[in-house]
């Protein structure tokens, strides 16, 4: 064991130029740095994010003092982060695999509606609240499979295919809910998902589990390897015998699953199902993923980066509210901060220029 480890270390010290790159592949670039390992092996790439987050925390502390720095407020931030966080983890996969999913928000909305249809709730009351959970997950996965099928086998660009789903799922949700907000009346469900465990809200536990599972899946399993490979070079993957279409379909199904999970969480959070749940959440999720350092063209994804991205945005919104800022001012500041965070992050991320990102400031000679 230890022999092997040390061998890997020698191997792993590439010339400085390549360090950022090599380090990004789960190789224990800097042995002992737990953080760098978690962030997909690249501490450098995430350091800008951490700085941005700390900066925000500092601002929060300076402007709101104890109200900001309190366990209660921390939980508020984490609860806010949890729903979008779960969706962003799914989004990390699909983007790493070279795709995109614009339909997550509307699929999440649909899943909350279907799970709260009166007959579903009646059935859940008669049997077990888990029925509602299963229904929500099923809706998410089914929508994801349709996305995946249209993209992988129908050959429709992901942006368009999932945009169609975005529109369509919202319409279906409205139709099913008949435009009402459906209240959750299965008490077992509410008790669990609006409740806490060991003093920490269940939603936060779910978020943590999804993050851990997502990290493991992306960095330690064949599924994750295929995802990175396909996103990195689809032709090479296909010619090496990987079933690219099937995997692509699974990727969207996975994202659909996270949308379903987020739906369950949203039900717990709001105790109501409605077609408006999740509106515009896709943009926030994509922003979090990209700010987190996952390449929009695919081939590289960081779960921890995504988590940091999500935390930055929810902390931001908390700091704003703590300071009683108008939504308009918030919007302007948010725009500036998105750009700032990405620039900071890029400053620390010596990423190799990729030909596919055209107007990038890539120094001549890729």
């Amino acid at each position, binding site marked *: 064991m230890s022999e092997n480890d040390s061998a890997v270390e020698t191997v792993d010290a590439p010339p400085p130029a390549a360090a950022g790159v090599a380090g990004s592949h789960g190789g224990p670039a800097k042995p002992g740095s737990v953080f760098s390992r978690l962030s997909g092996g690249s501490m450098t790439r995430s350091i800008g994010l951490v700085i941005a987050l700390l900066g925000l925390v500092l601002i929060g502390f300076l402007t709101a003092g104890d109200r900001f720095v309190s366990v209660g407020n921390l939980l508020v931030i984490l609860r806010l982060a949890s729903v979008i966080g779960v969706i962003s983890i799914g989004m990390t996969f699909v983007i790493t695999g070279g795709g995109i999913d614009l339909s997550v928000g509307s699929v999440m909305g649909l899943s909350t509606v279907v799970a709260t249809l009166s007959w579903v709730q009646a059935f859940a009351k008669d049997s077990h609240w888990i029925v509602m959970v299963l229904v929500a997950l099923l809706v998410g996965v089914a929508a994801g499979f349709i996305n995946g099928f249209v993209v992988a086998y129908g050959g429709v660009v992901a942006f368009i295919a999932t945009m169609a789903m975005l529109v369509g799922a919202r319409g279906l949700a409205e139709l099913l809910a008949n435009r009402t907000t459906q209240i959750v009346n299965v008490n077992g469900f509410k008790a669990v998902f609006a409740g806490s465990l060991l003093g920490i809200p269940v939603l936060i536990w779910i978020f943590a589990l999804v993050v851990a599972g997502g990290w493991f899946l992306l960095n330690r399993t064949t599924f994750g390897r295929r995802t990175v490979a396909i996103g990195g070079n689809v032709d090479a993957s296909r010619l090496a015998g990987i079933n690219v279409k099937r995997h692509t379909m699974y990727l969207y199904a996975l994202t659909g699953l996270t949308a379903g999970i987020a739906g369950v969480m949203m039900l717990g959070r709001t105790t109501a199902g409605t077609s408006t749940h999740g509106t515009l959440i896709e943009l926030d999720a994509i922003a979090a993923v990209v700010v987190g350092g996952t390449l929009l063209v695919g081939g590289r994804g960081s779960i921890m980066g995504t988590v940091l991205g999500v935390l930055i945005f929810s902390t931001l919104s908390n700091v704003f509210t703590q300071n009683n800022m108008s939504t308009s001012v918030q919007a302007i500041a948010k725009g500036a901060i998105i750009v700032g965070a990405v620039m900071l992050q890029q400053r620390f991320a010596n990423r190799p220029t990729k030909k596919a990102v055209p107007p990038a400031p890539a120094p*001549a000679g890729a």
Partner: protein
Amino acid sequence: MTNVVNGGPLLTVRSLTKGFSGVQALKGVDLEVLPGEVHCVLGQNGAGKSTLIKTLSGTHQPDSGEIHWHGEPISIANPVAALGLGIATMYQELDVVDGLSVAENIFLGHEHAKAGVIDRRMTNRRARELMARLGHGNISATAEVGTLSAANKQIVSMARALSHDTKLIIMDEPSAVLDSDEVKNLFRVVTDLSAAGIAVIYISHRLEEIHQIGDRITVLKDGRTVATNLPVDATPTAELIKLMTGRDVANVFPAATPLEDGAPVVLDVRELALPGVFEDVNLQVHAGEIVGLAGLVGSGRSEILETIYGARKSSKGSVTVSGVAVKPGSVGSAVEAGMGLSPEERKSQGLILDEPIYRNVTLASFVRWAKGGRLNEKAERAVAREQLVSLELRPADPDRVTRTLSGGNQQKILLARWLVHGTKVLLLDEPTRGVDVGARAEIYALVRQLADDGTAVVVVSSEIDEVLGLSDRVLVIAGGRVLHTSPADAIDEHGVLDMVMKGSAA
């Protein structure tokens, strides 16, 4: 070959160095180019040839050293400055834009335009003239470049270089994507250029070409000039190889081992067809046999390989590996049956360039070490390292990012992928494109070794001598048809060319 005009060198480079954070690509390069000469720059993969010309074309700035142009010290700030001086470059990677027409590509960046509006008539006319000058008047100036073959793209690239008022044209492996006939045409153009007083820096790994058009030679090794201004006529190839590699590379092609009696047919292709590309291809390859497909670029050889492999879906016919039928259009089924393909375009079709080497090596087989979907990267690294060592990759570092490897080494990674996976049938498309002479010999030996171990191999190459030298048996292809089949030693380069020109077997 050419009249060397007097009056001092056109370009002089002294003690040039260039480092990329960590890699010292140039450690001290000297070079002198006279007006109108064809100056060849030789060196192994990674020797620094491309880096050198990128500093001359303004893409890179040197760290130290001097560049003199017409005897004046200069610095070349960017590509535009280089073009302004009269230095035009054909880069190693195809540098054309698929979405633009031939004429638009040629004049990209220096369009014939008034107030931003392109004078299309003039543009097309000048493009036609240039293409005609290059012997390719048949390529329409308005054709979209994306529809052209790689060879024709190369011509466009050359036309672009000529479209400037040029004193020196740098060509970085222009022949790599050309077949022998195209190369002949290229040489004709180069000769014309030099007759017109334009100097050419010519880079190639095909040493026989040097003798056909070169005047003088500079050899780079590990970022340093190890020999310069060698007259072509007085320098034997063996000496060049020694200068480049530091050793003797004898006998490029390994001796063919006679096929064992009763060796089983492993790959059996019957009446395979891809509508409009090729039809009625029959091919049986025995265990231990190397079969080569010879023909011109565009004759459909790559398509045949890809269809056998399931990357394209055949309309008709069957493919079996050791009796197991392969599902048409399914790469997965082909791989499962025991086939492997090393594709024509190493970078775009073969490798995930930003991933570490070991992941490229295990791309087809990482599942093997996984338990319940959980990767075993330790095992993968170990296996990859073993392969790197046995393929003599230096450093044998499985964690290095694949992009940083030289072409020859990248090619070895592809072979390593299938060595690790273990194949009964190996399909090789242009296995030595852009690969230096030393690495070529190693790859040839490796392929022969594989065959000797019982693998059935199919090779496609645009270098006819390579097909003939490496294979046991050769199929001559033209226009999507097999014209002729014979043992490799029963036919020569002329015979092959004759056949493909006539479009039929003699």
